[in-house]
């Protein structure tokens, strides 16, 4: 288990990276501008790449260096590029009708983090890992998960929804780097690739939405009910 024998500096580094990623999730939650979301997502991905590299260094998992590089490339560059193309095509640059104002969603997000905190503390205590970096990773992972779902609920622009799903994935990826660094490389690669395909599919669907539904906001998608 990686968490059990970490030098304090490494632990601090891990927690700083993890918490900053969480902070960036909040930046996305608290911002109205689509481009800001995208930049925050890119930075978050870079942080996760750094985290991968740090885990590789301190945990002795050399294959994670490759994962770090690929994360930075795919999540940090390619995905933001694809998203920025979608945003440019949309000719819309901010969320117009929030269901919840950014500051309220920040507070709700904060409460979700508290929930994640309680759950992960409980799980950590059950496993006898209280106070280790594993518990922190668990909190951040669950928090980003919940924040992603919150974003899905309160944001209606299609780009925001795509980003929300990417935040969900980033959360899992971040947590798995710390919790299960020994996960087979193939799996991580396939998940990275999968994400790329997901975004490409979303891109095509966004085009369909624009052409056939004439909207880029899910508020307008109300035909199917009951």
């Amino acid at each position: 288990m990686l968490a059990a024998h970490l030098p304090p500096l490494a632990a601090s580094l891990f927690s700083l990276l993890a918490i900053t990623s969480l902070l960036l999730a909040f930046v996305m939650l608290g911002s109205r501008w689509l481009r800001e979301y995208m930049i925050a997502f890119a930075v978050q991905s870079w942080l996760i790449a750094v985290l991968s590299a740090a885990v590789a260094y301190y945990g002795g998992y050399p294959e994670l260096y490759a994962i770090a590089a690929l994360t930075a490339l795919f999540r940090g560059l390619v995905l933001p590029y694809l998203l920025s193309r979608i945003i440019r095509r949309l000719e819309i640059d901010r969320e117009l009708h929030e269901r919840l104002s950014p500051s309220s969603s920040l507070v709700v997000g904060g409460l979700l983090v508290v929930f994640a905190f309680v759950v992960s503390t409980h799980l950590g205590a059950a496993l006898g890992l209280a106070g280790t970096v594993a518990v922190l990773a668990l909190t951040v992972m669950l928090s980003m998960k919940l924040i992603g779902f919150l974003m899905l609920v309160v944001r209606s622009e299609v780009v925001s929804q795509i980003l929300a799903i990417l935040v969900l994935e980033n959360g899992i990826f971040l947590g798995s780097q710390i919790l299960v660094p020994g996960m087979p490389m193939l799996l991580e690669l396939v998940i990275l690739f999968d994400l790329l395909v997901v975004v490409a599919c979303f891109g095509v669907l966004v085009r369909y939405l624009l052409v056939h539904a004439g909207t880029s906001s899910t508020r307008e998608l109300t035909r199917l009910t009951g």
Partner: protein
Amino acid sequence: MTRDILLQVAQVFTVLALAPLLQGVILQWEERVQRAQGPGIFQPYRDLWKLFHKQLVVPETASFIYWIAPVIAFTCMLTVPILIPVLTNFPLPLSDMGDILGGGLILTLGSFFIVLAGLDSGSAYGGIGSSRAVMLGILAEPTLILVFVGITLLAKSMLPFVVNHLLVAQPAVYWSPAHIFLLAAFFILLLVETDRLPIHSSTHIEVYMIEEARILEYSGPLLALLKWASAMKQFILYTIFCNVLLLPWALSVRGTAVGALGAAAALLLKFFLVAATVVVVETAQSRLRYYRYQEPLAASFLLSILAIVANQLR
């Protein structure tokens, strides 16, 4: 023992004497940043002197609250310095009568009476100012409590001196994310409590005023007391921010006169540093309309939660 009592008196006196100076420096730098001349840094002293010599005009509708509010606010601000490390990094007599939470409570009591006074005067502006201040207070309070919780989790204690010692002794804790996020959260609270949010305007008498509206009906010595109390509150918050959280160094360790003097000088230096940051932040940040006041507070709330989360790693 006598020396400790003297030091305690010196702590209170430092706050009393230097608070207007800090205010003056901030006001001047605000103007300087905007390429204006600005008032001299001793202007607040002259203002206070002038106000003390002016006639007192009392609204007809005012009750006894109008009279006691400035006195209570002033007294509160005199009490808090006893509890916190202003000059020394060890507890002085009576320092143990309250922890950080106690200090916060006394500060809030002072604000509460000013709110009452604003309502009591019966003028429209007083009411508006009080309601705005209460609204901000309601939102700031939970965050403040969360910050205290974060500090408690960090130091396993709520005594400011313990936190100070811990941060000095363990650089790992000082640089831990928990502490950094606490700093950020507290910094935003500092802006809120000292009226330096982007919703506050730099010219103080206008429609969106908060602090000024509450005391608009005051004049003469009572106004002087209120202004002084307000400057002291700012000074106290800066002290907590600097001496407990941000720069816990350069305090008198043994309690000698030289040490205390040096600590006072260091204090001013630290404050100028923070004040410069505050001024830059305030000027650089574009002004928001009043009804976005909750956004910085939400950010602060969030940062304190992140600090608590980061505390999981011990």
